[in-house]
């Protein structure tokens, strides 16, 4: 409050206690008189259901941060990040770690920063059009949080760039037409840039941040500790402390939303749980089950999901009287298969991404079989076959063990059609205004069909190729369209040189 002590003594007599002034600074809603409320907070921007201000008056979140507290806390966090950057931010530090772990880092630090920047926009929309001032105050801090989540990975990865051009993708990724970037943009444009504050609160703050980012920032942080990656650990936990605070917008909005339109709340939940799952399965699932050295793994992606996402998610659903998403059995199947299907596909198209992938050998496959007893036996023949292909090829001849045909993509999530199981892919289709749309899964089709006008005009990669907008030749597609080149595109993390491969002298170099 900035009152001098002399003034305190003469005037009010004492400094106000925090609780006495706090709400003046962060929860002060007054009745509008110059314009109607619906004009200051139009439904198209503020979101639906449109409720009068009184309906939101009970909105509250537990942190109730003031700006002074925010600035102090963030300043300490910045100092801690700066210290770790100073101590560990040299390229040589990365060489201590396994190459596949560094691949996981490249995957994360490409997906993260510019998506966080898009989240600045989503938060700022809530900071203006959220329906109560406490929500708007918290969202304003959220926007400042997301700005540092943009800057931290860009800052921390920058020193690595000189020694490794793939780190350029920390910034370049979202500016490219790499298929993963197309998929990530398709999700994040809607989630972070287009969503009104109510949808943003349910989708980003509740589903994504309260639910899934725990996986990222708590479970993955534990793996960092196991692997010995102090820099990533510091980065993730610094970000997580912010997420834990501004994520509280989610439950606070959801609580009021379910009182007025439970069906809409359920729809938002069903839609965003699936979309979030697909993205995390790729980003976090790859890292946990394939890109962490096997001796350092503590839990599988599925176990982390069960511990950090599903238990808490089930509790929250019960609290708000919401149901599990209608596709729950499909989701449970996907927990066993989906990221394995995508990883095997991505490995065989690794030149289409900006990080190297590792081939699971006997030790990794034993671990995967132990963790995924029901599904991995069906995936194992794929790895045996890829290993045989490497045995027929000299180490380092990467494109000899690589797909050549054009992969196919989901019209909704834009990820490769890797749904279902090896025995039965879950592809499905629908027609809309004379066009065919193809989906990796029933939930993706359902999401499309709930709002076709939003999605129908987006072209997936196959439609871009068929329309002549992207080259159909794979190498041309990678270099001219995806923004990759031989130096940056993904290869086998060990150049296909694994001691366990049985490369006969006569067999190699075929």
């Amino acid at each position, binding site marked *: 409050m900035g009152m001098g002590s002399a003034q305190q003594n003469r005037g009010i007599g004492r400094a106000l206690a925090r609780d006495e002034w706090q709400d003046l600074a962060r929860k002060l809603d007054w009745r509008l008189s110059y314009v109607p409320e619906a004009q200051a907070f139009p439904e198209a921007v503020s979101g639906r259901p449109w409720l009068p201000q009184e309906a939101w008056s009970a909105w509250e979140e537990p942190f109730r941060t003031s700006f002074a507290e925010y600035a102090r806390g963030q300043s300490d966090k910045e100092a801690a990040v700066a210290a770790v950057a100073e101590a560990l931010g040299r390229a040589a530090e990365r060489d201590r770690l396994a190459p596949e772990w560094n691949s996981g880092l490249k995957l994360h630090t490409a997906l993260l920063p510019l998506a966080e920047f898009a989240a600045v926009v989503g938060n700022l929309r809530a900071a203006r059009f959220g329906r109560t001032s406490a929500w708007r105050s918290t969202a304003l801090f959220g926007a400042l949080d997301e700005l540092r989540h943009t800057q931290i990975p860009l800052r921390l990865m920058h020193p690595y760039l000189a020694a490794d051009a793939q780190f350029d993708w920390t910034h370049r990724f979202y500016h490219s037409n790499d298929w993963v970037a197309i998929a990530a943009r398709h999700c994040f444009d809607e989630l972070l840039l287009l969503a009104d504050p109510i949808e943003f609160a349910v989708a980003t703050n509740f589903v994504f941040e309260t639910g899934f980012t725990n996986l990222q920032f708590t479970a993955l942080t534990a793996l960092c500790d196991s692997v010995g990656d102090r820099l990533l650990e510091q980065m993730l936990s610094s970000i997580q402390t912010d997420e834990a605070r501004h994520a509280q917008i989610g439950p606070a909005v959801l609580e009021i939303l379910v009182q007025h339109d439970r069906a809409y709340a359920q729809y938002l939940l069903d839609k965003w749980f699936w979309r979030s799952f697909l993205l995390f399965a790729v980003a976090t699932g790859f890292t946990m089950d394939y890109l962490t050295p096997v001796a350092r793994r503590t839990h599988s992606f599925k176990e982390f999901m069960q511990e950090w996402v599903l238990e808490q998610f089930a509790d929250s659903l019960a609290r708000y009287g919401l149901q599990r998403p209608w596709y729950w059995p499909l989701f449970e199947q996907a927990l066993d298969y989906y990221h394995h299907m995508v990883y095997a596909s991505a490995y065989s198209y690794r030149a289409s991404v900006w990080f190297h992938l590792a081939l699971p050998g006997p030790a990794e496959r034993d671990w995967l079989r132990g963790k995924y007893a029901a599904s991995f036996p069906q995936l194992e023949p794929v790895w045996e076959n890829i290993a045989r292909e490497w045995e027929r090829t000299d180490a380092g001849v990467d494109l000899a063990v690589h797909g050549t*045909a054009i992969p196919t993509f989901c019209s909704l999530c834009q990820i490769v059609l890797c749904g279902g199981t090896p025995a039965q892919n879950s592809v499905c289709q629908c027609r809309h205004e004379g066009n065919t749309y193809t989906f990796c899964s029933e939930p993706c089709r359902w999401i499309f069909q709930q709002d076709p006008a939003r999605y129908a005009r987006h072209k997936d990669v196959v439609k871009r190729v068929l329309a002549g907008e992207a080259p159909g030749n794979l190498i041309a597609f990678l270099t001219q369209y995806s923004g990759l080149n031989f130096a940056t595109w993904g290869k086998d993390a060990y150049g296909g040189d694994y001691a366990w491969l049985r490369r006969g002298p006569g067999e190699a170099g075929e």
Partner: protein
Amino acid sequence: MLTPLYGFLEGDTMGLLILAHEDWSMVRLAEQLRASARVRVAYEGPLAVFHDGRRLPTHYSVRDAGLAALDCVSVRRVSGAEHAPSASGAGDV
């Protein structure tokens, strides 16, 4: 005329685009998908093409089968005895 099709080979982890000639037989179509998926999937033996809940006779061409652009076909292993025109197959797309 080339017909772009989504192909799903039994045992594979992903769908692949096949640009099929309209006079390709179902055998030729299935072999094309098998060749495209070779890095991940390798098994010998006869294959059959399924579309829209039915198995397409091996001697059918893409044109005969009425396959249109962006249709999904699944290609599955069949035993030698089955490797003849027949009615229905389980688990097609």
